[in-house]
């Protein structure tokens, strides 16, 4: 089997901001953007990426969401956080003022075992403050 996008990012490219928590598409920790669309890099084969632009957390470090996550205390252990922020960046990119329902719908694929969800919701609601 060919390499996954996640293996290439974390291994060959040394971009360890993208996390692996399950490796089989069930948790969202490895979320990256392909042309702005969130995908799970652990189940995306790297050769299928083609010409699309890959955005990882390393490319979103100056995104206002990073500050709003810290401000709202939207992380505890922080292991799921890069994936959460990448997913959220796709959401606010498409819908700059998402409702709570839209946030809950869009973010439901990103598991946070620490249960920072109420703060994550808050961080996304206030990302432009």
């Amino acid at each position, binding site marked *: 089997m060919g390499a996954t996008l996640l293996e290439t990012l974390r291994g060959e490219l040394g971009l360890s901001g993208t996390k692996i928590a399950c490796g089989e598409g069930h948790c969202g920790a490895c979320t990256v953007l392909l042309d702005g669309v969130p995908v799970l890099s652990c189940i995306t084969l790297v050769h299928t990426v083609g010409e699309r632009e890959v955005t990882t957390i390393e490319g979103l470090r100056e995104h206002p969401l990073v500050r709003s996550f810290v401000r709202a205390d939207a992380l505890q252990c*922080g292991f799921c956080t890069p994936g959460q922020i990448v997913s959220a960046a796709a959401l606010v990119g498409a819908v700059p003022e998402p409702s709570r329902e839209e946030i809950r719908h869009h973010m439901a694929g990103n598991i946070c*075992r*620490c249960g920072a969800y109420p703060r994550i919701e808050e961080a996304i609601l206030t990302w432009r403050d």
Partner: protein
Amino acid sequence: MARLIKTEKEVEGRYEETWVVVEEDVLDQWPAGPLTVVGQAVERKDGLERARGEAPYTADLKLPGMLHAAVLRSPHARANVKRLDLEPARRSLGVRAVVGPGDVHVLTDEPRYPGQPVAAVAADTFRQAREAVKLIEVEWEELEPLLDPDEAVARGELVEEPRRFERGDLERGLAKADVVVEAEYRTQTLLHNCMETHQSICRWHGDRKLDVFISTQFIWGVRERLADQLGLDPDDVRVVCEFMGGGFGSKNGPGDYTYIGAELAKRTGRPVKCALTRREESLATGNRNATIQRLVAGAKADGTLTALGGEYVNAVGWSGFSPMTGGPMQYLYACDNVRVVEHGARLNAPPNAAFRAPGFVEGTFGLECLLDELAARLDLDPLELRRRNHLDADPEGRSYSSKNLMECYRLAEEHWARRDTVRARSEGSWQRGVGLASQVWFGGGGPPSYAWVRVGADGRAVVVTAMQDIGTGTRTAMAQIAAEELGLPLDRVEVALGDSARGPYASISAGSSTLPSMGPAVRSAAADAARQILELAAQRFDKEQRVLSLKDEHVVASDGGSWPLGSVCELLGDGQVLGKGARGPNPTGMRVLTFGVQVAEVAVDVETGEVRVERVAAIHDVGRIVNPLGARSQVEGGIVQAIGHTLSEERLLDPETGTVLTQTLDAYRMPTIADVPEIVAEFVDVPDQHLTNLGSKGLGEPPIIPTAAAIANAIRDATGADVRSLPVTREELLRALREARERVGAVPA
């Protein structure tokens, strides 16, 4: 001064009397309420690093020449290896070493639970290691597994002697009761499922010195256990954990993977990473064991409890410990006649591990549901029943270091009073109701724990201690405490933790003990540094030291005068002020406990059995709150986990073979953001006057304890159904509803 004293140490509900060397705690507590830095809501110090994906977790570390390990784990619950051929693995591409039973003490050819390690491979890449593991040839002799906890108890298959607790005479108490309720409750096996799986990297320097990078809750404990097992001098084992992705009690020791990694690293002369996959994580890293709870309660017509009895079976697994499932029954209510027996059943199932208030989470579900069943029989308000049986003094003759449970109940009234409005919002098949449950737990921490504080010419302070931040905001809380004592703004204080080679002994981050154990040590180290700075200032500015104090980055004299702190610190040049501090003893003869109450609001679809938790209000009494922002997150996180425990999570075993069916995150269903109710977190926030120079207790565990019972009691309030088994699946709820209907139907008109 260092003293030798006898003190009680409690971890995860287990008390030990031990001799310890402690230093006196000479500092007076700060006044109650928010101070300049302590008690203020502040952002996490390492928040940006984590959010930007820059924080190096163990999972992210790569050492030069590092190999990767994969482990062959038993696919059977109970089996013997009849023939094992490691050769095909040895010949496989990229493989550098293969170990089997006899090579490492955790590898066995007689596995007694599914997932027990049998052999392991180190290869250049993880894929190569995993492929090589698949080539290992094993001929198994499968044996019949023991899976039924009651049967294990009947056969005397126990992991330890049963724990018995008795006060008064249960039978006499029952005879005195006007009403007796009896019920059997069951809780399921739950998985921690930390997002960062269990893993470590081992690197040898020669054959006597070992570095271990590990995702752990107890740096010093890993050092101790490895040195012991490998016959090394503890100072030759360096343990590092800068950032870790969740533990919840499951990462308190080295784990089988570290012993395996250490041996493979030794054989290859290369660093070896042994990282578990999610599927291995679901098998072999511990769990919250299932329980069976056979409970009885007796009360007078006015609600006074006369008897409480509990026969508990903990389905521990092949090894592990039997948690205090009867703890809440022992500690929560005034009742003269209590009998608790806990059996720890040994089964051919993966061993349990501490999981966020082990025993008390499960036991509170049973006890607090039983109390509400009693309230219903007595036609008493559930909150009133709890107040009536409030335990004012510890029945075992100790006094409480502090207890504000009545204040928690008072603060709960406002949420409890929403009952009528909530019920009135019931519509069609959706019935609504409100339930509550009380919480008791330990969380006082204890000695020993040490910290150093270093102040340099730049006037910045660094707290140095070999503790770990498991995601609870420890770095931030420690920095706040040091900043408060030194009169510094928070951004002038750093915390250097996570490395046994760098700082002094620090306690485990488990049992809600990090803040109460470490916080006072950090404060006393900061106070020691402050004293030395003031000594210098007294000489520099020709003042008596006793009139000087540190405030807002200034040396302030009470008889007039104020100088920037920098004007003293710059005199240091390359010199440093080094403060050292230690955790003082726990108050002798006192019981240190945390308390709380939660009120849950639910909506239940009586046709489909669907349950939605709509609101949870949590009121906890954990002494002084250091960071209200982080404290709220702890409460919310605990409640979110508890909602998973209550409604959706369950590790399932195949009833015939004992293999684990729920090894992936789609099968083991944890809450998502869409499952989260409105959560209100309140604190009594009164320092425990008897506990250390800080007056803080731990908060990691209390919030997860009462939620399940509060939800179940809300379901009863909404529908009349007695939910007695977790998780509350639709089947369980529909069963309870049917039973409730039959009961009503059976009442003579």
